[in-house]
């Protein structure tokens, strides 16, 4: 993935560990404790969520999705783009590869905006790997319902801008 994100996490974790140690009180121990408590809940679920999602991505025939999206235009294209973003359960490498392939086939910009917006806010892979293990189904349901209108709105705004 991206080096900067990882660098930030490691650097900030080390920096705060050093800072809390230097305070010579219970701060370091309490921080470790909080981390251990959170991690014992999340890590076992995360491992199997990652494994399952990895197999799931392998099963989705992405070529079909790209072709299907590429033939559409107008607001129908925006809607199909939104729906496609919803079902792409993979990280940015796969999604941007698809978006770029789609763009090179002469896809409309609003459909691309809707696709990337849909993928960003629905993010089926993140839901499986992070959100359900950490926050539960009820949170996921509420968040999903809140972001449903966003991809078509983004696509419609893009239609206005590019018209």
């Amino acid at each position, binding site marked *: *993935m991206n080096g900067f994100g990882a660098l930030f*996490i490691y650097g900030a974790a080390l920096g705060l560990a050093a800072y809390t140690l230097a305070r010579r009180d219970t701060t370091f121990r309490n*921080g470790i404790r909080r981390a251990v408590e959170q991690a014992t809940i999340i890590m076992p679920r995360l491992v199997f969520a990652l494994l399952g999602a990895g197999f799931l991505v392998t099963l989705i025939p992405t070529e079909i999705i790209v072709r299907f999206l590429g033939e559409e235009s107008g607001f129908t294209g925006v809607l199909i783009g939104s729906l496609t973003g919803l079902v792409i359960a993979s990280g940015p490498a796969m999604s941007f590869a698809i978006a770029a392939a789609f763009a090179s086939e002469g896809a409309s910009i609003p459909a691309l905006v809707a696709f990337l917006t849909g993928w960003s806010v629905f993010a089926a892979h993140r839901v499986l790997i992070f959100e359900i293990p950490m926050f539960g189904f*009820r949170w996921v349901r*509420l*968040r999903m319902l809140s972001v449903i209108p966003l991809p078509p*709105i983004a696509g419609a705004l893009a239609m206005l801008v590019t018209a």
Partner: protein
Amino acid sequence: MTGDAPTGPIDWAGLVRSGLGKSFWLFVAFAAIMAIVCYLVLGPNAFEDALGRNTELLTGVLPRVVAAQLLAGFVWVLLPRERLSAFLQRNRGRRALVIAAAVGAITPGGPASAFPFLAILAGLRADIGVLVAYITSWALLGVQRIIVWDMPFMGVDFSLMRFLIGIPLPILAGIVARRLPLTVSFEDHEPRRDQQ
């Protein structure tokens, strides 16, 4: 959850019980079913490829998640939680959504760092609109992702346009979340707090 600094020994038995709770076994079942379907549909060779990629993914992501958990733990104990929580209780209007969206856009790192921060916000009893606005903004407008992914793949013009179009959307999602007749409790998904 109380947000009090924990004292006393860690309740390991309780932690293991919640770690291996009901939803843990759902994930085990999900992984097993996906693996079996993958093997049956795509054959042993494709299955081995997928397994190899999965192992790479795991070894790549897990160290970052561990580091992010440590980071979130330290941030949790260092934050002036009472004051922040009071601030979040006082600012429940649109302004809170705007602030949450701005913070989401500049949160660096992938989901491994954004979701622990979302957990901190939830622990501070931020309202549901703030939580949705924050994570939507991180997903949609994350400046780091736009630089690393959007610009190289889609070009600068397209990326800027998508960013500008996206600016009002996290706030809109937060408003929708506040209006939905649904409630969320994070208690089930919080580690057990010591109650001694």
